[in-house]
């Protein structure tokens, strides 16, 4: 059997997801027997430029170099896997999108164009992603399962239940009962509820379930004494970009006047200059803001849907672009995960 060629790459991130893979100590040497690891900068010197069967990418896009790298990797890889929360949802660094620039403008990097003129976003904003392995860090066994499935020719399946499900199976005391700000009910499981096992409330690092009822959990947490603002901040910490639109990038040094403008005018501005990649995400996000809790129930499903933004080679003509824009409202995160084999 020809060994599939695999590459592990990291963009801006903490290297934790790649480590998570390495922490399969007992299986590591066996994996190396079955797959041909072509690149793993963390342990291996090789700089590869040949085609790959699978590329795992950790980290988010936060500099010009990252944009280049991820496009280059995409071009070489048959299957591209977003590994971990940064690559899937943008994780903590993507919170910058929702943070007032005054909070970070004093930090020095405002002087480096390399990193400031790029919006911190998950990799699927720039390239098409075939599979997502979420989590901060991703469950090491899940990475193993993924590789095993690929070797067996099986379609890797994603875990399709909320964290609460596993948490119950693990017989933990419900942290909501202890008035903790637990996001377990809306968060995709598959982590064996590892945080709540350790009595830490779920922070939602794996992103919301496609049918997550965000307004309801917000209301519940409000009853527990958490302000809307606090809950919003918490939900934004790991998976902001799966629930909300990607705001137009705020430049660090120059404070945009647009911030003060009313929503209406802000919308107009956006309409006038739509960012291609962000277009679709905005639509759903608008709904979130407009609709009040009660009305929202219906639309919740849509909110949680993270849309895939396909890579756009320059040659792609506009009609295909339009199609891509119309369709994906129904394409859930989950369906994307189940795409293998195509």
């Amino acid at each position, binding site marked *: 059997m020809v060994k599939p060629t695999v590459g592990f790459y990291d*963009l*801006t*991130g*903490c*290297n*934790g*997801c*790649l*480590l998570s893979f*390495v*922490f399969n*100590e*007992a299986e*590591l*040497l066996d994996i*190396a027997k079955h797959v041909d*690891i072509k690149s*793993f*900068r*963390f*342990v*291996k*010197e*090789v*700089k590869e430029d040949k085609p790959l069967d699978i590329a795992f990418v950790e980290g*988010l*896009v*936060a*500099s010009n*170099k*990252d944009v280049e790298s991820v496009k280059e990797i995409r071009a070489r890889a048959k299957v591209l896997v977003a590994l971990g929360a940064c690559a899937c949802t943008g*994780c*903590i*660094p993507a*919170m*910058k999108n929702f*943070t007032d620039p005054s*909070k*970070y*403008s004093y*930090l*020095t*990097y405002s*002087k*480096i164009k*390399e*990193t400031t003129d790029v919006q*911190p976003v998950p990799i699927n904003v720039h390239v098409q992603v075939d599979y997502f392995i979420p989590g*901060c860090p991703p469950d090491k066994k899940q990475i193993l399962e993924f590789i095993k499935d690929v070797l067996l020719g099986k379609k890797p399946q994603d875990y399709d239940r909320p964290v609460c499900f596993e948490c119950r199976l693990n017989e933990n005391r419900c942290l909501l009962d202890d008035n903790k700000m637990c996001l377990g009910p809306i968060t995709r499981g598959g982590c064996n509820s*590892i*945080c709540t*096992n*350790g*009595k*830490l409330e779920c*922070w939602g690092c794996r992103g919301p379930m496609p049918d997550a009822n965000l307004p309801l959990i917000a209301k519940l947490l409000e009853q527990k004494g958490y302000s809307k603002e*606090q809950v919003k*901040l*918490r939900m934004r*910490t790991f998976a902001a970009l799966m629930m909300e639109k990607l705001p137009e990038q705020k430049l660090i040094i120059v404070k945009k006047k647009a911030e003060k403008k009313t929503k209406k005018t802000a919308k107009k501005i956006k309409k006038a200059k739509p960012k291609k990649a962000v277009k679709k995400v905005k639509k759903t996000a608008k709904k979130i803001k407009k609709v009040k809790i009660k009305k929202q129930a219906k639309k919740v499903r849509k909110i949680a849907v993270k849309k895939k933004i396909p890579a756009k080679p320059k040659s792609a003509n506009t009609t295909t672009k339009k199609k891509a824009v119309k369709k994906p409202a129904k394409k859930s995160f989950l369906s994307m995960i189940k795409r293998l084999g195509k």
Partner: protein
Amino acid sequence: MTKTIKLEHITKIEGHANLTLAIDGGKVKKCELGSVEGSRYFEGLLKGRKCTEAPEITSRICGICSCAHTICSIQAIESALGIKPSRQTMMLRELVMIGERIRSHATHLYFLMLPDYLGFESALDMSSKYKNEVANALRLTKLGNEIITAIGGREMHPVSLQAGGMLKLPSQEQIDDLRRKLQEAQKDAATAAKLFTTLKYPKFDNETEYFSLYDGLNYPMLTGDLVSKTSRFKKEEYEKYITEYHEPISTSNFVVKKDKKYMVGALSRLNNNHKFLSKNARKILIDSKQKMPILNPFMNNFAQAIELVHYVDRAVELTRKIEIAQEQPVEIKFKKGRGIGMIEVPRGILLHDYEVNEKGEITKANIITPTAQNLLNMQEDIRAFLPSVMKLPEPKLVLEIEKLIRSYDPCFSCSSHFLRVKWEK
């Protein structure tokens, strides 16, 4: 004629870094080391968050040292809010830190640095010929992970560690089980020490100021003052001595002590604290006939190997001492204040500095990581080391330079994510 060498994507280190060298007629014209990691603005993102959320967030600065960031952040909060954790909590924290240290040192020594010395491209290629070594390394990494998982709940970004105490305590059986495993691992650590203390390191002495924590009682970990051969100051005074500045070549800041380079990490710890080593570790150090203090940056790996033995011994001692008593974390009452956490992490001194308002929200955060402190020293070492290898053909020269960079065990992910800068004029 000027010869320029550009090293992009230096491998087998954590994070991304570039090095630019220009050599003209045997003289080094340019030597610039910089981080090219995208910026993540952690310190900015912390503002406005409840301080109790900080450990979870800052843990994500680094996958390798997630426990270190968590604990440092916790200690900063505790110092701001005036919370005193119990003795048991402190011992458990130290144990987690040791777990991480064992894992980090073993990974770095065997997988990132040893291939250079054995002439392999990577640990994966090494695995067939050096089966025992690789197995030994994997066992140690696994042990480190088991310690962290038992106490912290997860091998990375631990969940049970919180300001005030532990959310969930390990059971006494778990501690006893760890002790048995640690005792078995003493052999592995000794084997590692034998290998890495007898390795032929390039001869290159370049003295600098070696900074580590020092509490006069133990090999430093969670407490102590900042100490070097010539100076000693408290963590609260750090701003008086340490300045951060920024070079346009790097997305990381450089940190200096009164405009001078200094070094932190295993070598500094060993130089300043070798008298506190465990019996086994001290014996290995004495047997190696190594003169103290060590001035060769390559010997940082030697120091790591000695530490490996020490920390396994220390962990055995801790697991003997710990008798799990059920206790609740200290209740947190918010108040205005400022807190500094300063601890020894695998790569040196880590500092978290928060200002908190009455509601417990962070109003200002400053984080200084070890690699940022080492950056200038690293660059100057490369500059000083270059003439001795200049005659080598380029691939060899590059390897030697990379060896030097790797000997520091740098972590560029961490180093790039801070801070406010004081411009030096």
